[in-house]
């Protein structure tokens, strides 16, 4: 964001710094590449971390151009810098089990029986998990309330837990975990907002990036990664 813009065909230049939730890491890496191909004068720098960390940093003046949060609550924290967020994707939960499914997990109800790890209720995936489980009328005491999805996946993959609730996008392409789509998953959709920041150092590129994410090309990449359309 700091480097001096240099002219290019479409008038876009410089770098655009995208702060994106960790769960967006793989799809946004692809989007960034596609965006750079489209706008050769622009370099995308992606910064991934937990949404609340990113929100705090943006609140303290991080030189971000774009913020893509995993939930609306964290986007709301930076409302003064991100006045017009747009929902660009949705994510649903799946039950992740270690390859071979040692706990013989078939449904949500089985989560009460086996060792289960969930996201903490405070983080987006945890809030969604709570909703999903209460919708299904299942009471689960998790072996651990993890700080993020990665931690849930790590424990499942290591065989520590027999099951965990993670985002559908997290298990795409992984061989060390299998996933089961539970009944009622469609009813609990986590909505991902994105916004070009009001004081973005490179506002034109920021707007272009947001547009690209919402464009058909962007949506295609997200869909391939397992995200739902907004």
């Amino acid at each position, binding site marked *: 964001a700091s480097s001096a813009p240099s002219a290019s065909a479409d008038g876009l230049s410089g770098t655009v710094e995208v702060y994106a939730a960790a769960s967006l890491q793989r799809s946004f890496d692809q989007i960034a590449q596609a965006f750079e191909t489209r706008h050769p004068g622009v370099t995308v720098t992606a910064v991934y971390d937990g949404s609340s960390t990113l929100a705090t940093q943006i609140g303290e003046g991080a030189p971000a151009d774009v913020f893509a949060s995993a939930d609306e609550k964290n986007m709301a924290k930076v409302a003064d810098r991100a006045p017009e967020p747009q929902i660009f994707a949705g994510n649903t939960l799946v039950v992740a089990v270690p390859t071979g499914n040692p706990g013989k997990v078939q449904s949500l109800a089985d989560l009460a029986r086996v060792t289960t790890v969930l996201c903490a209720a405070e983080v987006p995936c945890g809030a969604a998990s709570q909703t999903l489980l209460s919708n299904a009328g299942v009471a689960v005491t998790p072996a651990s309330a993890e700080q993020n999805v990665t931690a849930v996946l790590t424990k499942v993959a*290591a065989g520590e837990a027999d099951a965990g609730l993670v985002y559908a996008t997290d298990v795409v392409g992984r061989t060390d975990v299998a996933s089961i789509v539970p009944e009622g998953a469609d009813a609990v959709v986590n909505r991902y907002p994105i916004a070009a920041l009001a004081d973005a150092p490179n506002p034109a590129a920021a707007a272009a990036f947001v547009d690209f994410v919402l464009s058909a090309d962007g949506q295609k990449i997200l869909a391939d990664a397992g995200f739902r359309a907004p």
Partner: protein
Amino acid sequence: MKGAGYVPRWLIVPAVIGLLFLLVPLTALVARVEWSTLIADVTSPTALQALGLSLGTGAVATLVCAAVGIPLALLIARSSPRTAALLRALVTVPLVLPPMVGGVALLYLFGRNGWFGALGLPFTTTAVVLAQVFVALPFLVLAVEGALRSTGVEIERTAASLGASRVTILRRVTLPLAAPGIVAGIVLCFARAIGEFGATALFAGNRPGVTQTMPLAIYTAFNGGGVGQGTAVALALLLLVTAIAVLLLVRGWRPPVGAS
């Protein structure tokens, strides 16, 4: 040690800069405290449970570290320079790793599919202690080793020639003489254990009352907090104040003069 040494007076300038750099950020933290909810935040069952767990596991981890770390420090301090250099490098290794990686390593080792999976340690309070020991032990060992090396062996030789057994020498000469360094090492170790987050999060998980220590509670609050993250700040303050109280108590304690 009587009287003062002779140190250039202007060194006070960088010294104070260093001290301020450590302390001013904390005042910035205090400035963000939401006083209206402070009491409620720090007296919530979650906070108190986490605090108790932190102090308990921290204390146990420190004990474990002392039990294996002081012998290890002795071993290094009394090895030949070559062996000592190698051992010291080995002990330093876990220090370099981000704690999160250490947690993954512990998970691989003690996890269900790990070499010691049969022990069933993950998600237990024991796992919290192990994670703390793993990250805090190097600090204790290196600090104590430095102290032991500078007390030297001459005085041990004197004790030996007075007929004291190795155990007696250890108990009445070596350890008391290295006491300042050992206390420093224990303080470092306890502080590091209390503040440990990454390894615990991965290896022990985040179960309120079982493995949710203060740093995990703080992080959870931080993730869930609003703009000001008031609860997280309040919990951090609670941890700080408690730890300082514990440390001042430990530091205040001195072996009675002429004790035998």
